[in-house]
């Protein structure tokens, strides 16, 4: 049976996040040929609808309201339920982002349905789709299926390939009017700490530092390398506990789980808890003075040496490659 799928698009600073396109690809897999309907919320998102269509959505519905400028679970919950009631889909796909993690359980609870969160791969299609997700922070994986009724999944950024963009695709972008009321949380302030807006969990390149970084100033060369590669800076628990950096950068079994294309571990010994958070990265580079460090066991390429010597040299070498 084909399924109509509702996909929540997520905008960040005026542009759709890549995970929204990945979510459309996931929706396509579970739809069994059914219609893919994108949904977008905000104070001005109409223009983003076409982007979703070019990436594979058949049509898009938007809800625009001043109260949707900032995400709140109440505001987005009301907007999503209005879209749900209008469309009555058989499946829903969210990104497993901060927003998706916060909103999806609320919607699942309202609809008294299951929710398979943090999906990294899908096996099979349509009704036969089985969802693969990491458990124990990636120390193991499980295959989960929906028993019956509405299917609801959230997908981890950076794991499911988006469909090729097709500029010739067209579709209807229509808005629905929803009265967004009774917001119980009021957002007073947002302080941006992320490096250049590249989110750690979505970054294609992560440069992470451990105790070997020795101080908060020691992160400077790592930040420079991350910037050069368009990536984000992360850290081990050791570096966070020693106050070299903020806990929001922590990667590991507690902290964030990342799966970038390139993970550069600098001065990180590779405790089992840290490895749980990064060992599924596609390519891992380890730089450590200790040749016995555990991190070399999962690294594709290792350099035994001082990160303060190696990283500046890497920056110079990469600049040469980039200028060619």
């Amino acid at each position, binding site marked *: 049976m084909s399924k109509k799928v509702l996909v929540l698009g997520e905008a960040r600073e005026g542009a759709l996040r890549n995970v929204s396109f990945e979510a459309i690809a996931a929706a396509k897999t579970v739809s069994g040929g059914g219609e893919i309907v994108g949904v977008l919320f905000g104070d001005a998102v109409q223009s983003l609808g076409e982007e979703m269509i070019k990436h594979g959505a058949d049509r898009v519905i938007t809800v625009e309201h001043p109260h949707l400028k900032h995400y709140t679970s109440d505001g987005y919950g009301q907007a999503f339920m209005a879209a749900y009631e209008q469309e009555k889909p058989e499946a829903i796909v969210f990104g497993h982002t901060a927003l998706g993690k916060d909103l999806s359980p*609320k919607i699942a609870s309202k609809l008294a349905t299951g929710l*398979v969160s943090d999906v990294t791969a899908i096996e099979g299609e349509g009704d036969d789709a089985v969802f693969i997700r990491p458990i124990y922070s990636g*120390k193991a994986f*499980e295959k989960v299926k929906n028993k019956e009724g509405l299917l609801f999944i959230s997908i981890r950024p950076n794991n499911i390939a988006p469909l090729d963009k097709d500029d010739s695709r067209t579709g209807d972008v229509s808005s629905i009017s929803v009265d967004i009321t009774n917001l119980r949380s009021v957002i007073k302030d947002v302080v941006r700490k*992320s490096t250049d807006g590249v989110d750690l969990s979505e970054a294609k390149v992560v440069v992470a530092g451990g105790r070997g970084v020795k101080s908060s100033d020691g992160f400077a060369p790592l930040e420079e390398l991350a910037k050069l590669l368009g990536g984000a800076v992360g850290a081990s628990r050791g570096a966070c506990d020693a106050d070299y950096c903020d806990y*929001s950068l922590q990667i590991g079994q507690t902290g964030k789980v990342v799966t970038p294309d390139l993970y550069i571990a600098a001065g990180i010994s590779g405790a089992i808890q840290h490895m749980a958070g990064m060992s599924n990265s596609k390519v891992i580079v380890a730089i450590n003075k200790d040749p016995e460090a555990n991190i070399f066991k999962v690294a594709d390429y290792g350099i*035994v040496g001082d990160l303060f010597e190696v990283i500046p040299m890497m920056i110079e*070498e990469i600049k040469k490659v980039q200028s060619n």
Partner: protein
Amino acid sequence: MNIYALVKRTFDTEERITVSNGKIVEDGAEFIINPYDEYAIEEAIQVRDANGGEVTVVTIGGEEAEKQLRTALAMGADKAVLINTEDDLDEMDEFSAAKIIAEYLKDKEADLILAGNVAIDGGSGQVGPRVAELLGINYVTTITNLEIDGTSVKIIRDVEGDSETIETSLPLLVTAQQGLNEPRYPSLPGIMKAKKKPLEELELDDLDLEEDDVEAKTETIEIYMPPQKAAGRVLEGDIPAQVKELVDLLNKEAKVL
């Protein structure tokens, strides 16, 4: 103030995971309170100490989860509740867990409910917000700071590295992010006192729930280990030569530059 902390017994983070017959091997493993739930318990105790009231820790599990509840009592919680589903349920998912907890909490008039933002085993982070929705109260996830003044609440939450300042009010459910506080270790007198603190054990029957009411909506059909990575290459030569080789490999072999 009437405060509840939701906790889960999980594998110690130090444990290696092994799979046998499609299941995680639990024999001989060390179990702990889910680390994010420890932040929730610590915050609950601090809120009680500042505002008065009582902290009740609640878990779903088998007999063995009593150990983690005693630890929470030793930290300073006042009462514990074990909802024992061992005899009734073979499988449950987040839908089931939330329904059971919400059924327990629905007539408790909780002012504040705290939970970890995610459990390090299943890792779905669903149960807290689901419980709040079932109870019809507001929730805020991944919090790193909590200030309560009467019924007004000011929160800082972590949003993918950014900090959001939120104003809301009680009753409220919050989920703890790392950095919220520094969970205390149970003291020896605390451990002694914990032995005498009330620990109530309930079953689904006591909550007027039938097995069908909480039947899982999703099903795990297989658990398996990730493929082992082949050992990588540690480069050789002097450092400048290694760096040159590394960048060349990243560019031409791994194609990630």
